[in-house]
């Protein structure tokens, strides 16, 4: 039905949150031996502030553009964040480089959904259905899905 990738809904997420990813990783105590920096990590540029955009694909115009932050070294390895900006808003933030292995891999993965969670509270999310462990009709009455159905979508 739909061939082209639709424009994602704009999500307002402060740039401070993105720095939060780096913070989350860099502040974690060095107690995870399995998370040595990735062996394949290329030599990193001297700049280390993830919040200073390098401007990859930062062409003008009104369409979405991406900016890739500088590599930030952390005790677990390098972290690099890429933002997609559209209409002056950050619509996506992702770690393009992150330490791999062990617990820190999980922590890295964790940071991204938390961004998403903030996105949920930041906008009145347009949602079609709600998944949850609501098996019975009693559970349904208490569920977000029930509220959604009452609102009439």
């Amino acid at each position, binding site marked *: 039905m*739909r061939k082209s990738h*639709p424009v994602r809904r704009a999500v307002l997420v402060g740039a401070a949150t993105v720095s939060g990813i780096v913070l989350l990783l860099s502040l974690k105590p060095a107690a995870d031996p399995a998370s040595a920096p990735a062996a394949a990590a290329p030599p990193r540029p001297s700049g280390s502030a993830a919040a200073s955009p390098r401007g990859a694909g930062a062409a003008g115009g009104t369409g979405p553009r991406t900016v890739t932050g500088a590599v930030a070294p952390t005790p677990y390895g390098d972290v690099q964040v890429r933002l997609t900006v559209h209409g002056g808003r950050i619509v996506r933030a992702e770690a393009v480089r992150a330490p791999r292995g062990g617990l820190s891999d999980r922590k890295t993965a*964790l940071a991204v959904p938390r961004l998403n969670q903030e996105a949920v509270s930041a906008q009145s999310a347009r949602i079609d*259905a*709600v*998944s949850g*462990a609501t098996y019975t009709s009693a559970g349904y009455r208490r569920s977000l899905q029930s509220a959604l159905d009452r609102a009439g979508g």
Partner: protein
Amino acid sequence: MGTVFSFDVRGGDADAVAAALGAAVAGLHRADELFSTYRQDSEIARLARGELTLADCSPEVAEVLDLGARAERDSDGWFSPRYGGALDPTGIVKGWAAGRAARLIAAAGARGVSVNGGGDVQLLGAPEPHRPGRGGVSDPLRPGRLAAVVSAAGTEELAVATSGTAERGAHIDDPRTGRAAVSDLVAVTVVTPRLTWADCWATAAFARGSRDGLAWLESLPDVEGLLVTAGDEGLCTSGLAARLG
């Protein structure tokens, strides 16, 4: 099946979609008649008692038992279509029935279909031309709030299923011991195109616990998962982030 199904259908010819919706609802009632383990006269109950052979049963029964056998195999036995040694494909029927209902309506020409069967969601198409279907994931530890939102952007079919203890307490059994699964998890949400598998894999990953469950979901192609532990730690597969939004 003692649960509630919600439908959100957009677009298409109104009469054709209404007819398909009626057929989909009838299909759910029929699934209940065939598979309910609470009905002594259901085909599955009679099959379990040996009063019917599989050949005597409706074709859906063989279809669901085949899917259950595959789920058991692909989950290394962590999903089981039996309960206490007796035939009981309850764990697979809800997802299978909801997915089937959604496809029936989409086939009638609806542009966007969302079917929620007791918390297990199948999204097909897009509700509006430039708005992909989006499924919220209930936060298991904060009732009424969302833990994440999953987007079907760029795909025609996406299912979101959650297994957990939020409502019924420990109801997922470890097929190896026959007792309630000892899990450090409170909920597992699985995102994959087909609801049958999302439902089965969420159940199996829950029984496996956080460490093994996460690694196992990561190993499955085109399957993403979000696991929430009793300690309120969220763990997810590496590709889940691409599905959030």
